[in-house]
């Protein structure tokens, strides 16, 4: 991968040296436009947020104010609502990602064994991924509606209780989770299915000849070989769930009370409803730091593994 196009030979050292030099400049020139965009519009705002996090900034009282040191950090760490929202985020992420992984993998196995209609099945599975959570999420409110909703109608038909999906304190978070599961389980299933289909055939045939049980094959062959793919899906889903915003915004707006208020939604409310840019920026810095650490330690090794394997193959 690290080799450039022109390979220097000993006979033409100077000419090749120049060519290599110019390769280097050419390659740098190519990345300049993208890097400028990213540095200016991603890092500059970050520096701005970092700066605001050390200042007093209540926009209802005018402009960004004086330097206050670590005050905002202290306030945020002692803010019960912040920790509550962190807890909601953790609950949401653990439940949603767990359900999506388990169901997704099960569905992948189900489809993998199917003999006909795989194309159609896959096409239908993709549909939720094409829709915007903000748009379909809004429509799910109609499905959840206690009066006109289809979900409670079906539950009523089979004699089950008809909950107040979005209004009940104990259920609201689960309703958001259910929506997320609806949208993202197909994502897990599709990728797990691709992983299953890419498995080599020989070890499985050999194991079957040896008379190994299905369970044993799954435990010693299938899952170990699928592990990299599944772990990648897990990490991608976790990162996305932690930043959940759209579904909460259209389904519950954090309510009832604050039982579905995730960190992103609390941050939004603090910054753009209460206009406390200082606390909000401080939370953003915390949040960003956590995500950066996570992607550095979980995602980077994973993707390196995949891309190096791809370049070998």
């Amino acid at each position, binding site marked *: 991968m690290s080799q450039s196009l022109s390979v220097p030979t000993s006979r033409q050292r100077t000419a090749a040296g120049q060519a290599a030099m110019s390769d280097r400049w050419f390659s740098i020139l190519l990345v300049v436009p*993208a890097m400028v965009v990213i540095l200016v519009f991603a890092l500059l705002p*970050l520096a701005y947020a970092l700066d605001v996090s050390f200042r007093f900034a209540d926009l209802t009282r005018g402009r960004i104010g004086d330097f206050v040191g670590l005050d905002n950090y202290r306030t945020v760490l002692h803010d019960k609502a912040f920790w509550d929202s962190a807890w909601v985020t953790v609950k949401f992420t653990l439940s949603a990602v767990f359900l999506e992984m388990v169901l997704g993998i099960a569905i992948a196995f189900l489809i993998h064994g199917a003999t006909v209609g795989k194309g159609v099945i896959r096409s239908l599975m993709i549909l939720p991924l094409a829709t*915007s959570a903000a748009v379909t999420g809004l429509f799910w409110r109609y499905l959840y509606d206690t009066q006109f909703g289809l979900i409670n109608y079906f539950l009523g038909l089979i004699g089950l209780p008809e909950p107040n999906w979005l209004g009940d304190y104990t259920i609201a978070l689960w309703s958001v989770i259910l929506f997320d599961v609806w949208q993202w389980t197909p994502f897990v299933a599709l990728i797990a299915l691709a992983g299953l289909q890419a498995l080599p055939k020989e070890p499985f045939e050999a194991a079957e000849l040896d008379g190994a049980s299905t369970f044993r094959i799954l435990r010693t062959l299938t899952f170990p070989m699928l592990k990299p793919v599944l772990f990648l899906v897990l990490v991608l889903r976790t990162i996305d769930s932690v930043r959940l915003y759209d579904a909460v915004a259209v389904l519950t707006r954090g309510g009832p009370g604050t039982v579905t208020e995730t960190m992103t939604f609390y941050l939004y409310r603090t910054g753009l409803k209460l206009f406390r840019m200082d606390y909000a920026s401080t939370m953003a*810095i915390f949040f960003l730091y956590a995500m950066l650490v996570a992607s550095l330690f979980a995602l980077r090794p994973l993707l390196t593994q995949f891309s190096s394997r791809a370049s070998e193959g």
Partner: protein
Amino acid sequence: MLQRDSSFAREALRYGLIVLVLGFIVFPIAWMIITSFKPPEDVMVSPPRFLFTPTLENYVHAIYDKNFLFYIKNTLFISVTSTVIVIIAGSLAAYSFARYNVGDGHLLFFILSTKMFPAIAVILPYFLIFRDVGKTGVGRFLGIGLDQPGALIISYTVFNLPFAIWLLVSFFQDIPRELEHSARLDGLSRLQVLAKVVCPLAAPGIAVTGVFTLIFSWNEFLFAYILTRKVASTVTVGVESFFTLQGILWGPVAAAATISVLPMLVFVLAMQRYMVRGLTFGAVRG
């Protein structure tokens, strides 16, 4: 015979479960499309009605009374412009990463880590910066500012560029480099090689990346919601305009939602072969 029976039962069970799963997945979208064709008196009823005379009333309401095509037009302009910028800047960078390994992988991972930024963390600075820039002459001239298309174009470009670069790198890596070698030996310059040899070969990959970027921009909600009010609002925000004091008009909402979701459904179906690859940043080449 016995074995065939049991395998038949197994297959029946399998397809039964698959139908159940697909039913759960497709039904909300199907019900949305069905609701969009219902006459108003059949939408807000309990129990829900399954038989009705289809009508285009909701579409008429969404398009003429609520001017929903305005949001479509905005969204189209913003997402297409941003996609073009992403593809041009992204392809150049991705080619450089795939062939010359600029930055020994560190730069590529730095780019990926910006993708991991929660959008909400930069939205406050964006809000403040665009608010201030929008008041200057340059900002007004370029349409960069709160409730201006430029603000969203910039946001979507920044947030889609890392993804696009990663996906494009995987496509560029698939192109055999021998072709480039021989083109170079034939006397083509590096830029000519890129334009005449690499780009045609990478065209399908570039198209796939473009469609993904378009879908992400089209469906984006957070930036659109916070950075726009009226002039530059996109479909995801537009659907919310159906909230009225009397409640939500579910018929027109369903119609507007269907209009805004349908183009993306078509796109996604057209390139389902590449979905897995796209969704994993090019890591899984299913």
